[in-house]
């Protein structure tokens, strides 16, 4: 197996003086379920600088998924503002949000969310397809992204021909192919064994090293410790926001492989 070392060496972090990548101010999100109003977020504020890695933690129902959807521009806040790289995205239309997602955000999901019966390279090309990148460049960039995650030899494999770890690496390649500012990972190791989890987290740390902001949503403290900052939500509010030295994701040598 190709280790995380295949990822390019750290690039210098992009201008720290520029606007924070994520700037959320007093955001609320209320869902109307029939007659009941569910307050998923009750006034959350958050600033994340470029190149930070942050884990959002919390029990189910704490509002962490809602916050992730907002950060990922999949949803809009009921009130409050969200500036993504200085641009207010809290009142954009569905089409405008789609464009922002395509240009600035890469997603990595727990269940990989690759298109079935579609080759790895075509899966990775998908964001570029909607960004209007031409066929030839699309293919070149998709191959480069797959090589970056160590899957250069499995371009034409479909998801069901790949292991879970490999599928997640395809998903990571897809997330970074459009050179986003944020990679949003929702329980990225939830369906993986511990060894593969470390592999995936090593890849995430490599992205951070390149200046990409990584937002990790998880309920596992083991996984959260790979991030430099841990935000904990409870009942739609931030209860703690701590910074520490992240644990480096290093693979122990495999025994008798």
């Amino acid at each position, binding site marked *: 197996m190709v280790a995380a070392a295949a990822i390019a060496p750290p690039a210098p972090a992009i201008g720290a003086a520029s606007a924070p990548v994520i700037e959320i101010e007093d955001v609320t999100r209320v869902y109307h379920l029939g007659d009941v109003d569910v307050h998923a977020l009750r006034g959350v504020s958050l600033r994340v600088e470029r190149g930070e890695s942050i884990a959002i933690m919390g029990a189910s129902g704490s509002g962490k998924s809602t916050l992730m959807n907002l950060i990922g521009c*999949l949803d809009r806040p009921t009130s409050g503002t969200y500036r993504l790289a200085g641009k207010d995205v809290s009142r954009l239309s569905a089409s405008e949000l789609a464009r922002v997602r*395509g240009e600035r955000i890469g997603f990595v999901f727990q269940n990989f969310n690759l*298109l*079935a019966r579609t080759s790895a390279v075509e899966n990775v090309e998908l964001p570029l397809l909607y*960004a*209007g990148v031409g066929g030839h460049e699309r293919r070149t960039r998709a191959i480069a992204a797959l090589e970056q995650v160590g899957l250069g030899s499995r371009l034409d494999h479909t998801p069901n021909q790949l292991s879970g770890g490999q599928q997640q690496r395809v998903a990571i390649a897809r997330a970074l192919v459009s050179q986003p500012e944020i990679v949003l990972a929702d329980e990225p190791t939830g369906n993986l064994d511990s060894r593969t989890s470390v592999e995936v987290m090593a890849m995430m740390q490599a992205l951070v090293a390149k200046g990409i902001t990584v937002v990790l949503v998880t309920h596992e403290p083991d996984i959260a410790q790979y991030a430099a900052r841990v935000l904990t939500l409870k009942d739609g509010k931030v209860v703690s926001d701590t910074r520490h030295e992240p644990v480096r994701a290093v693979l122990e040598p495999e025994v008798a492989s």
Partner: protein
Amino acid sequence: MSPWATIKVAIKALLRNKLRSLLTVLGIVIGVAAVIAMVAIGQGARNRVKGVFEAMGTNLLVVSPASQNTGGVRGGGGTASTLTFSDIDFIRNEASAVRWVAPQLQTKVQAAGDDQNWNTQVTGTTPEYFQIRSWAATSGQLFDDAADAGGAKVAVVGNTIVQQLYGGANPVGQTVRLGNVPFTIVGVLAVKGQSPMGQDYDDVIIIPSRTFRAKLQGGLGNFLRGSIYVSAVSADATALAESQVTEVLRAHHKLKDDEEDDFRVRNLAEFAEAQSQSTDTITTLLAAIAAVSLLVGGIGVMNIMLVSVVERTREIGIRMAVGARPIDLMVQFLAEALVLAALGGLIGLGVGALAASTLATKFGWAVVFPSDVAALAVLVSGGIGVTFGLYPAVKASRLDPITALRFEA
């Protein structure tokens, strides 16, 4: 996304469910093929009817004597001798909507060639008759006005006569005896086939009317014992020609206003038109029934697209997450429906054409491949794709990315 990229994505998506796509396409194929085959058959029938009437004569009116009424005993159509050869000139000179006019005198005679004989119809007429019936000579020539005026003993013969009397050999220059009178064959007529009643048009010998009267009717009296063939200047003018002929003949026959016509004008052009219209009606009916199957095919497309949108909810969510706008998804699903329908339309076109030509060769029908209807059918099937694909496509585009991503198939 470029249109071509969109179509490619659509084709890829359809290929993931080959059997299902194929069956959906089949619905459209059957619809389009049915429309094309039905219209081809209908137009073939129309042309056949038209051809049959054109063989009778172009924009044809036939004037025949009315019944004889002697002391209350009415003799039936054609028994009176009220038409005269002068009537022909009156019609030619006074009815402006008439282009050609010619007498048709007929009798059955025993015709004898060198070693065969055959009972056939002899027609006595003037050269204009050949114009009226659009009848040309395939060999030799037709007789002219001079031959008619001079009472020449010349004859043109139909193909059946050539077969029966001369065993298929070219008879031009040969002598044929009609009764006891020898005629020189100057021409052979083009093959016309059968009349709507099954009468053989080619079983005929045509001779100049003057000769006919002198040699076969026994006299050159002015009374015309036969009928007058009239051709109107155009298909639209047949009704006008009919009333003009009636007016001219009533005036010259000195009929008072309360007297009945002593002749009868039959407008065969109108009859032909009525026949064409009835075949058109049947064609329309057949096409309408076929169009229903096309509609059913369209509903099949819609059904499959709806199923597809639900099944691929997760895929829609993924595409949205990576930057697809609602319009991109709408266009994608619309493109899939369009590809299904257009493919069905094109294949249906081929199948329809094949069915039409198979019917044509198998039954000897004159099937006409309707290129305009073919183009229309393909356009319509494309339109069906868009129409029936629109609702599923809009449904796909309105999905919420968060719910779509969480959807468990």
